[in-house]
């Protein structure tokens, strides 16, 4: 695993947070929202919360991973939500979450918000997660199409984020783990600045050796900054070894 988080070129602080632990096979990316201070705190609460729940838990059986992840996200959501309510001036703070967890022959991804997780395999690049924004929810019939008629509602506006409400539905997906796979979790500071094809090209250049993972992460961040770096940029790469 390798990861980089960077403030970007326009923001005054970094509201993204990153945590990964190769030994435990877990990585977390969070992108805070809700003002300068609030966003930073929210994303920190999210990565630390997931880390603490995971490290502090007993051995988890494979069949329990999905409920475990849902419960972990629920706890973290409660923490952020209560923080926002208890501290004046932090109202509306929240965060996205990408949590990637390797267990047995499966890879699990817990996802809330518009950060993303991708799979790079055999030279192909696939986005695994669905951005939780108004546009996507309208497309899937989960939000009334009339919402888009309201000029105040942007299609990219978040529908779900950690800490905005007392409960938070999490998308949890799983995929078979195979040697050679490369997983990328990132904040929208990367995905909004660098096209999927450019990202795939960078990954394919570095796909060969484990030592180049860190270089790949750094190149992705550099490319986002070169394109303008309008937001904070966080990149987490995880490769399945064995080839």
């Amino acid at each position: 695993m390798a990861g980089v988080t960077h403030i970007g070129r326009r923001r005054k602080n970094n509201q993204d947070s990153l945590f990964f632990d190769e030994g435990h096979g877990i990585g977390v990316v969070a992108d805070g929202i809700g003002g300068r201070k609030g966003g930073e705190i929210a994303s920190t609460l999210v990565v630390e919360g997931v880390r603490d729940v995971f490290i502090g838990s007993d051995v988890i059986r494979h069949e329990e991973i999905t409920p475990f992840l849902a419960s972990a996200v629920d706890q973290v959501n409660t923490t952020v939500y209560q923080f926002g309510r208890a501290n004046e001036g932090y109202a509306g703070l929240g965060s996205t979450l990408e949590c990637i967890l390797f267990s047995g022959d499966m890879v699990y991804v817990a996802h809330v918000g518009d950060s993303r997780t991708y799979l790079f395999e055999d030279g192909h690049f696939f986005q695994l997660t669905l951005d939780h924004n108004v546009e996507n929810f309208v497309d899937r019939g989960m939000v009334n199409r009339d919402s888009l008629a309201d000029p105040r509602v942007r299609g990219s506006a978040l529908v779900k984020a950690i800490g905005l409400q007392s409960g938070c539905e999490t998308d949890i997906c799983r995929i078979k783990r195979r040697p050679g796979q490369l997983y990328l979790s990132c904040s929208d500071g990367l995905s909004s600045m660098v096209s999927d094809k450019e990202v795939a090209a960078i990954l394919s250049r570095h796909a060969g050796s484990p030592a180049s993972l860190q270089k790949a992460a750094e190149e992705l961040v550099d490319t986002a900054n070169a394109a303008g770096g309008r937001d904070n940029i966080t990149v987490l790469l995880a490769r399945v070894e064995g080839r």
Partner: protein
Amino acid sequence: MMPREKLYLVRRDLETFTGPLTAPEIAKSMERMSVGLRDEVSGHCGPWVFLDDRERLRRFYPELLAIVQSTAVSGWSADVGGFRNEPTVKGPVSIPSQKPARRWLMAAAFFGLALVAALVAWVLAGSGELSSRIVGAQLPATTDYDAMLVNGRDQEFTAAMEPQVARVVDRAMRKREALTTWIPYLRAYAFLAGAGEIEGFPLKKLRGEAGVAAPADCSLKSWIKRWRDGAADFQSVASGGVLPSDHWGRILAWDPWWINRRGQAGWSRPRNFYQGCVLMAARAFQQASQQASQQAVNNPGSAAVRERLRLLTESLAPALPPAIAQDGSRQIKDSSVFGLWTCMDRARSRVDLDRCLEAPWHKLMQDDYNREKFYWATLRIAAQARMSGDREEWHLVRKDLEAFLAGRDHSDSYTRLDYSDELRFIGSVNGKLPESPDASQPSPAPAKSTEEDIQVDLAH
């Protein structure tokens, strides 16, 4: 870098992925029905497109469109009898001819009949009955559906049933034999991926007669209303407040072990109406939480409700409920009354169950109903101990059970789930336990056996 051979990833319900696969592999998967029209596909750096969305498929992955169409057509040819290789009607040529005048007469009669048939078809088409009364003279075989249901290919099953449902309902409503044949598939269609109801098919028939402790209407829309109406009480109930006399409260208290042991004739998957209700309740809760106009459902108690529904849904397994099969000692983080019930449902031994009496739930155990639920869980452990031959466990719980059951009804006082069958089973293998007060009364004449007879499966 351009990939050498195009690969695609298939996604189902935003949850599971298959692949990456080549186009021929997708075709094979569709033939095997491990990939269905309601799955999504994505190519290299491409968007996700539903396989039944021809327009977007043509736009983004035109190479897959032909595969999807041909596979869908060949798949249907097996099901829709009468469309392919149908014997052609012989025309006037085959009629033995004797005189020209007679040939004219026969031809006129034939065209007259054809005209009448066309007129009838047009009238029925206008009333929306063409497909059910003329085209649908022959219903598809049910064997293919069986394979899908048994193998858990629910999406394929739903996609395959979709175009047939109107005809099946029409036939089932007119002929009892058709109803008997098709009722398990209609129920599977309604509850596995549907909305718990089917247009033109009465809810009463969909429900059957055995699910007496369940709500009469377990449709998605009725559950959305229940969750919305009850939302204000979530937090109070989660904290151990008064249990509501509403179905939303009762379903959260349902015992997954009890539900999963009831097999009903006329049901396949779900196994019974209770399971169907749980599926609908969980789906409705999710929808109610996501709908912007129903934010009231997302209040401080909703996380506990959601967690409880998750356990109930996960426990709907064909064999041993996985949640129950899990290690009962695993820590449960939910400190609400729903977490307490989950703790009891997961307990596999008396030792596990005793942990539910400790913090954070010890105060909740002062409540009468929670104590009662504790004993129903004890009863389950007793039954499981008897099935596994664990006499020690049985002796641990027997006295407690005897004290609990003495002089009381054998139904859960809140959910009304009846444990008489479990008690009879335990009695038959280990000697009698106290009988219900009602049991001393003369038994009414046994009801006539119906297709809805319930069977308690204690063998699992």
